[in-house]
């Protein structure tokens, strides 16, 4: 187990280097960002040259990348164009997005798995058909439509919630954005769980468990659910990274100043330091989440062993 984890961690290094290099190159291909800093006029050449030197843009790309990576390992992610340290931006943005992601994951786990188990056990009944239909609708309607509709209905028409999230982004204000963010994944989790449960219901070990007289509750939670969760956990694990980076739309609708907002602004202003810094952290989140998922397999299914 220990050796496995170490091996996985070592594998992360080339993935990390490759991913950051790709992003670095992609942002650089977009061209010189200094031109956009002076509004509808040409930056005077002297100031532009100084700004380029300040942000290290006057050096060749490979040198920029090496300097950048060197700085990253000392915890220095550079400075955004508005003079703020990227680490400072991260320290405000990541907690917000993390809260939002946790709420979304919580919705996925609680509502998604519950609905999945209920429908899986009652296949073909009206509950099952109803939920299936409902998830189909959720999957087919894009996030921004659900988001804007709920925002306008609950926030403006009925006045139950604030349509936008304040800058502190407390948990209660993030409930609706979290639900919206989770909606599509939630529907997938429901469907995955349902199929998996329905399949395993007919397996031998479940029949054995029922035959030896275990209470139904114990059969479902201990035997059926635990074995049916492997594909669901894989999905949710990959979703953590996806939700954190993919919250751009949701964060824009509800005016949440998180990772999506910073990335959006960084891309618009072609701010290499911001974009690469945030994506680097997201890459790390992805890698760690994947590792955790793989380790969870062993917990869920004792037959899986890592050596």
């Amino acid at each position, binding site marked *: 187990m220990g050796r496995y984890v170490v091996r996985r961690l070592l594998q992360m290094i080339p993935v990390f280097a490759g991913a950051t290099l790709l992003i670095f190159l992609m942002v650089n291909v977009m061209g010189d960002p200094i031109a956009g800093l002076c509004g509808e006029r040409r930056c005077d050449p*002297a100031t532009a040259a100084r700004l380029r030197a300040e942000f290290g843009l006057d050096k060749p790309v490979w040198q920029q990348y090496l300097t950048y990576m060197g700085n990253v390992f000392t915890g220095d992610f550079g400075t955004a164009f508005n003079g703020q340290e990227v680490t400072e931006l991260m320290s405000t943005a990541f907690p917000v997005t993390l809260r939002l992601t946790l709420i979304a994951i919580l919705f996925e786990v609680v509502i998604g798995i519950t609905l999945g188990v209920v429908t899986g056990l009652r296949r073909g009944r009206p509950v099952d058909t109803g939920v299936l239909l409902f998830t189909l609708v959720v999957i087919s309607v894009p996030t921004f439509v659900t988001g804007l509709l709920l925002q306008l209905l609950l926030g403006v028409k009925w006045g139950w919630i604030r349509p936008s999230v304040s800058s502190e982004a407390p948990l209660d204000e993030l409930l609706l954005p979290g639900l919206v963010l989770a909606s599509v994944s939630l529907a997938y989790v429901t469907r995955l769980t349902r199929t998996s449960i329905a399949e395993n219901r007919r397996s031998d070990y479940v029949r054995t468990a029922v035959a030896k007289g275990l209470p139904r509750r114990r059969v479902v939670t201990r035997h059926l659910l635990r074995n049916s969760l492997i594909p669901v956990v894989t999905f949710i694990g990959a979703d953590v990274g996806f939700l954190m980076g993919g919250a751009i739309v949701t964060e824009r609708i509800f005016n949440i100043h998180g990772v999506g907002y910073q990335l959006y602004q960084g891309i618009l202003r072609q701010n290499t330091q911001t974009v690469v810094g945030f994506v680097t952290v997201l890459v790390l989140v992805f890698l760690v989440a994947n590792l955790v998922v793989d380790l969870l397999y062993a917990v869920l299914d004792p037959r899986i062993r890592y050596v």
Partner: protein
Amino acid sequence: MRGATHARWAVCAVAVALAATACGGGSGSGGTGAVLSASWGDPQNPLEPANTNEVQGGKVLDMIFRGLKRYDPETGEAKDMLAERIETSDSQNYTVTVKDGWTFSNGEKVTARSFVDAWNYGANLKNNQRNAYFFGYIEGYDEVHPEDGGEQRADTLSGLKVVDERTFTVRLSQKFSGFPDTLGYNAFAPLPRAFFDDHDAWVRKPVGNGPYLVDSYARGSQMSLRTWADYPGPDKARNGGVDLKVYTDNNTAYTDLMAGNLDLVDDVPAAQLKNVGNDLGDRYLSTPAGIIQTLAFPYYDENWNRPGMEKVRRGLSMAIDRKQITDTIFRKTRTPATDWTSPVLGEDGGFKADLCGEACAYRPEEAKRLIAEGGGLPGGRVTLTYNADTGSHREWVDAVCNSINNALDDERACTGNPVGTFADFRNQITRQRMTGPFRAGWQMDYPLIQNFLQPLYYTNASSNDGKWSDKEFDDLVDRANQETDVTRAVGLFQQAEEVVRDRMAAIPLWYQNGSAGWSERLSDVRLNPFSVPVYDQIKVS
């Protein structure tokens, strides 16, 4: 993605219309001390006076600073604020006397030195100030800010001298009679010693001499400004303060206004314009701002610079149905342009409603004839380059192209060429990569006709992106700048503008309005000619 945006707006529109009847106002309590909340955008550059060149940072500077002059929110006229008098006998040497009794909000006195230090800081190349060129008229600028990449030879402008505590002199490198009127621009604001002594702390929480204090500033999300009780100026704030909230999307800000979560939105999204009457009634305002949109041409491309092309450019101008586009796409929040300045200048300031005349009227037949006479479009077609990330540029560029195509009876004569980001767009322009007309927007820095002509059309001027050059125009501008009599100076600028018209250096499209919507708590909301709300005059009930 584009289809998606449309769908979103449509949903938005429907839902807002449904919601309109259920919308309540904010709370009714509170006196003059009440605080209002207003929409904001994250400033692009650090919040320093000489480093802020866009409207979001400008909003804050306008609240926390007062300069020698201030532009009247109503008329745009430059009126003395901190200046007791600005005297000159030759339009080149100026003596400035600062009024007594002004202090910064930290108690420090505003003296002649506060100005001289601030201007020296702004001009100094070492400080990377984006607005440094504003000090370019002052003698010694090329020594502290050598533009050709040469070595910096001085740290301070030789043209600035402190005489005594309240007096300083300014020597310009050339005659410029309009100079005092430019001093209302934010770049010329005075700075306290705290700015130089502990710069990082100052940028985190700016200290100025305006009617508001920065109470707290969470960068990227919110700035709370409170009324400064001891503000010595005549324009004391009539409310308790302003909370500026950063919105990524102006649609969200508008939704928040509808829900009673926000008091003031100063940029009503284009998609909501058709609902605004129902939603807000008379709590909506759209007034002319000093912004003009034009199409500029790449004169460095010989296709556009050969003789006869002025006819083609004139023809293109006459092929654009400005009125239809402003009516349908912009719902009358833009006005078809009939000159190269802006109505906010007023007749006396140099705005002349019919200066463009025929050349800006929609005459499809004549347009076709003129373009043919001029030798036709280069290669038989024309592409309009624009940035597609902000504004509703795509919509109007497509409309302009349709209009040109219809006039020329050629489906493929004109096409749009979107560029992903503003930075890339500017980059391609500065590298002279344009092969056809491109979008050029101009927001004035100060309400002078000079500001609409010289930076845009003077040979090698800072915003002359198309590299247009005309000796007659340059001479007229030089003469106008030296003219001490305002009326005669304006007359000369208008003559210069006629040169722009006759050569059709750029096609004027339309004047842009500023817009604002507000909650029932507010009254006396107005926009100044820079399309920024006059926060200090807003009353909160």
